[in-house]
């Protein structure tokens, strides 16, 4: 606390309602800023367009996670339950890696044609892997968990989780300027425009 060295994080402006925020976001987008964000208590419908955000790539990650789940289930079940890998494909090393005692029960075949019996587990693992890819992919894309953030130094900002609507333009943005950015936010209808600083 004794150091007084501070780094500028950016300008934070408050808006009264969703409609003002939406129009302000369009202004900031059209001014050509790239490192900025709006902070709202709930997701605002259409805000991605107002900000010019691209679509999330999360579905692509989840697709890969799902395929992995299906494959894992297929391999797990065929290796441990059938003669497919060792006898049919001649991959003897698979049998060396995974020791199995064949489960010959219920008069069910032990070749690959017992595959339909494996569908439920393949389905469940597809869902399981997809769900966890969604969770961890989301955290990675958001850059969370994160214990602290310069924005939390602003007293006013705590309202974002209640009924506050904010725009923050970061100092890292190439178009950021001390006067120009402030003027833009005020012109867009922002109130209580404040400079957010981070202790370093």
């Amino acid at each position, binding site marked *: 606390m004794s150091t007084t060295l501070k780094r500028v994080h950016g300008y934070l402006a408050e808006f009264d309602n969703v409609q003002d925020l939406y129009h302000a*976001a369009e202004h900031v987008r059209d001014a050509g800023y790239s490192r900025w964000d*709006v902070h709202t208590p709930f997701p605002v419908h259409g*805000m991605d367009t107002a900000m010019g955000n691209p679509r999330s790539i999360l579905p692509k990650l*989840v697709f890969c996670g799902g395929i992995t789940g299906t494959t894992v289930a297929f391999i797990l079940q065929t290796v441990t339950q059938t003669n497919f890998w060792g006898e049919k494909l001649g991959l003897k090393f698979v049998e060396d890696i995974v020791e199995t005692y064949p489960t010959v029960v219920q008069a069910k075949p032990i070749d690959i044609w017992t595959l339909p019996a494996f569908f439920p587990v393949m389905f469940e693992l597809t*869902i399981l892997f997809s769900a966890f890819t*969604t969770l961890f992919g*989301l955290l990675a*894309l958001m850059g969370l968990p994160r214990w602290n953030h310069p924005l939390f130094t602003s007293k006013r900002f705590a309202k974002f*989780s209640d009924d506050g609507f904010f725009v923050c333009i970061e100092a890292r943005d190439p178009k950021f300027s001390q006067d120009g950015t402030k003027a833009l936010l005020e012109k867009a209808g922002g109130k209580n425009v404040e400079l957010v600083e981070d202790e370093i």
Partner: protein
Amino acid sequence: MEASASNTPRILEREPLVLNNRSYSWITNRICGIVENKQPALWWILFIPSVLLSGVMAFCFIYLISTGVGVWGQKQPVAWAWDITNFVFWIGIGHAGTLISAILFLTRQKWRTSVNRAAEAMTIFAVMCAGLFPAFHVGRVWMVWFLAPIPNANAIWQNFKSPLLWDVFAVSTYFSVSAVFWYLGLVPDLATLRDRCRPGLKKFFYGLFAIGWRGGNRHWSHYETAYMLLAALSTPLVLSVHSVVSFDFATSVVPGWHTTIFPPYFVAGAIFGGFAMVLTLMIPVRRIYGLDDLLTPKHVDNMAKIILLTGTIVGYAYCMELFMAYYSANPYEAAAFTLRGLTGPSIWAYALMFSFNVFAPQLFWYRPFRHNMVVVMFVCMCVNMGMWYERYVIIATTLERHMTPGSWGEYSATWVDQWTFIGTFGFFMMLFLLFLRFLPVIAIGEVKGVLPQSDPHFDDHGEKGIQEEDLMAYPDRHVAKPVAA
């Protein structure tokens, strides 16, 4: 624009989802207040017996472990009895939570926002109760890890061709995915609680689980995609879980079990029983915590309609079972149903099942009954009991009268059976009450999102916000606001 607007009829005005024009901060204060203020006396009056009953459940399980699974009443030929009945009962309860959180989300039913949080919590707690029964039913519970596909010294792997193992995968996946879905939905609301706390232990823990959420739209964008993906994953999952549970029965050759109608019949029954439990929990919560503006009669009405629909599907399935028993000309199948409903030792259970599940919900055809909380609670209690009897009828009474009369037998539950089951209700209620105490019971962020003033085009379209006809004219939400001609 003006001319075309006057030619097209305005859509019917919908009942508001939040009554009395409540503001954002009113919603925050009301829901967070439940967690922040002292709990009402009734909370303690319910919580203490719940903890005691959980203790009874723990005692029963310890007694079972130390004595043997024979302390339960099942014996040949009734090898599956109360334990599997309770398992299917609890797992079915969970299904309504996922239906509300996933299927109603995909179908854009905005009223779900007021009930989804509590319903998802109910799902998770119900699945926890359900999982206990098969785990102890295996007999040697310390060997239950054998259900997991872990390489072991015997080189013996699970029988992946068995529906019982599919069940292990289905239920564990269901629990995991429901927990992920629930937690992800909680993150923004945990941030709300974090921002309201004074620094201290509470703020630390809410902050820890809020993972530094700051409501940025770049986050919301990914978050909403993730939420939709989880909803889309949970929808087939929830249908699969009870289908797989029904495979435990349907893939056997026992008359009365070996039918193709089981998967849809079980899924409908699960949703039916689950909605009854959601209402059983939410009607008192709404009254005790003053959430009448957020959980309106409209919500109760909608859920009552779902109970009526699924209850009628269940009734259809009961009748279809009887018809197929007759029409299949299979004497064993016909005998199974004659014994179940007419001449067997447990016809009382069949009668209770039929009247609670099929007749009681028919009251909901009449609108004033759907709006009378006493009637709704009465029907829900009937359904809660009826659905337990349904599983009892399917499981125990079928096994009492198997194929060969020489192996027929009678079944009666022991005190351990009974107290274990009663104990799980205590366990369930304890978890639910703790949830009410520490977490927001209604999804704060989601409810705010469905208020009319949350629409960015609220101003452009007069007081009512964007109307459906505007959306039809501009189906792509990426199109900027319509330019007035």
